[in-house]
């Protein structure tokens, strides 16, 4: 599903990622971990073409995403659910509208949008705050909404950047359960986190990044 081949990425001549070779199969759930500044976010951004590799290639669903034409990028991103590390919720819309937006971009019928958004708010247990604005929610709640927006469109690939950074252990467990569910339904899931507790004992593949290089891979 996702294939990194000899990928390097530089920012102002500083290397952020070096010689990354990584393959994630369709239907897999993978953790990317490593200390701050290791390059986790950058690695994810390469997958949805927010960055282009300076060397090597990133192939997603058979497409070399670094070589996509401008007009082909929206469709790549529509098939990718993304939980941004900084949430990126729109402050002038209620959290309901924030989540609905992902479906509107897909051109889904308003009636179905309402049903699906309601459902996902039920899943994350935030139905009672559905019509609040994001800035009136706690950090953890905002994170839940960001996750809801990423999964509501049932994407082919789900990329979650530090999705439990603001969550208490119990809520984190709920979220992980959601990811597992969506994964069972066929979505390929990549989770970037420096919380080792999150994947410990899950039996999933874990990729360790350090200073932009893959240090090791193991099964948690």
């Amino acid at each position: 599903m996702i294939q990194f081949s000899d990928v390097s990425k530089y920012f102002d001549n500083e290397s952020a990622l070096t010689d990354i070779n990584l393959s994630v199969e369709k239907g897999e759930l993978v953790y990317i971990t490593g200390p701050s500044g290791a390059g986790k976010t950058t690695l994810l951004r390469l997958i949805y073409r927010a960055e282009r590799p300076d060397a090597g290639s990133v192939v997603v669903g058979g497409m070399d995403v670094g070589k996509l034409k401008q007009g082909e990028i929206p469709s790549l991103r529509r098939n990718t659910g993304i939980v941004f590390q900084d949430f990126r919720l729109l402050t002038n819309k209620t959290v309901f509208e924030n989540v609905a937006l992902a479906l509107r971009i897909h051109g889904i019928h308003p009636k179905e949008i309402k049903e699906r958004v309601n459902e996902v708010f039920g899943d994350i247990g935030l139905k009672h705050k559905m019509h609040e604005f994001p800035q009136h929610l706690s950090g953890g709640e905002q994170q839940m909404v960001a996750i809801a927006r990423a999964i509501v469109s049932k994407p082919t690939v789900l990329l979650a950047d530090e999705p439990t950074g603001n969550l208490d252990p119990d809520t984190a467990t709920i979220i992980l359960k959601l990811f597992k569910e969506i994964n069972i339904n066929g979505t390929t899931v990549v989770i970037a986190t420096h919380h080792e507790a999150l994947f410990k004992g899950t039996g999933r593949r874990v990729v360790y990044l350090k200073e932009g290089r893959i240090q090791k891979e193991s099964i948690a």
Partner: protein
Amino acid sequence: MKTLSFLFQTAAENFWREKWINALTVLTIAVGLFIISTFALIILNVDVTLKQWSKGFGLVVYLNDSLTAEEEGIIKKYLKQDTDILEINYISKDQALKELKQSLGAMNPVLEGFEENPLPASFELKLKREALEPFLIKKKVGQIKQITGVADVQYGEKWLSSLNSLSEGMKIIGIILGSIIFVAITFVTYSTIKILFYRRAEEIETLKLLGASRGFIRLPFLIAGLFIGILSGIMVLFTLLSLYAFTTSRITELIPAVKAFTTFFPPETYPLLPLGGAAISLIGSIFAIGRIRY
């Protein structure tokens, strides 16, 4: 279709959120459109006035003294064939003298020195408006002069051509002024939409990351631009209508005859103002948004 209505809603929300910038833009565009359309209205009225006046304008064909009634009839027949001539009025020698005496009034005795009536008989011709172009008239005068029995042809060449050039001049000024204002209005919308676009830069970035197409991102801005233009046009239309009604009622109170000369744009052209405003601001908006890059 559903997405479209969502984008319209987004445009409306954005429009309301930035109501002060938008109101200012609507007002600025309205001022520009107002100047253009006021100018057009003045030109229209000058034209109508010209037309009204020139209805009474014509050529005077003076005839030789020696002509018999039959010969005069032949000339009249010839003139009748000319489709540019709307009306032919025969003024006999006696009639001419009578009219002259009337207009001289107290100076009447001046004419007593003449033993014979010195005035020639004439045909007064009224011409079609289209035939009143100075060079066309010159041609016609030349033709009529060729007719045997015609002594002379007189016409108000200077008067006509100066009126015509006044109207032409105003049209040229109007076009130049209009183009300048057109560019200015386009630029105003361009800047506004650009500002609105930058103010939403963060939101637009998020939309892009969520996979929104260019149309999805751009359409609300184009709709907003369109709306601004239409709103300005409607405002100007109503301002102009009421201003026109007010001014003409005031003027006709003073000089009732003016009523025959004043006109407003015909109702079927009313939509041109909102449409024109919309077109101009749409162009500005399209330039402002430019190409969306991912």
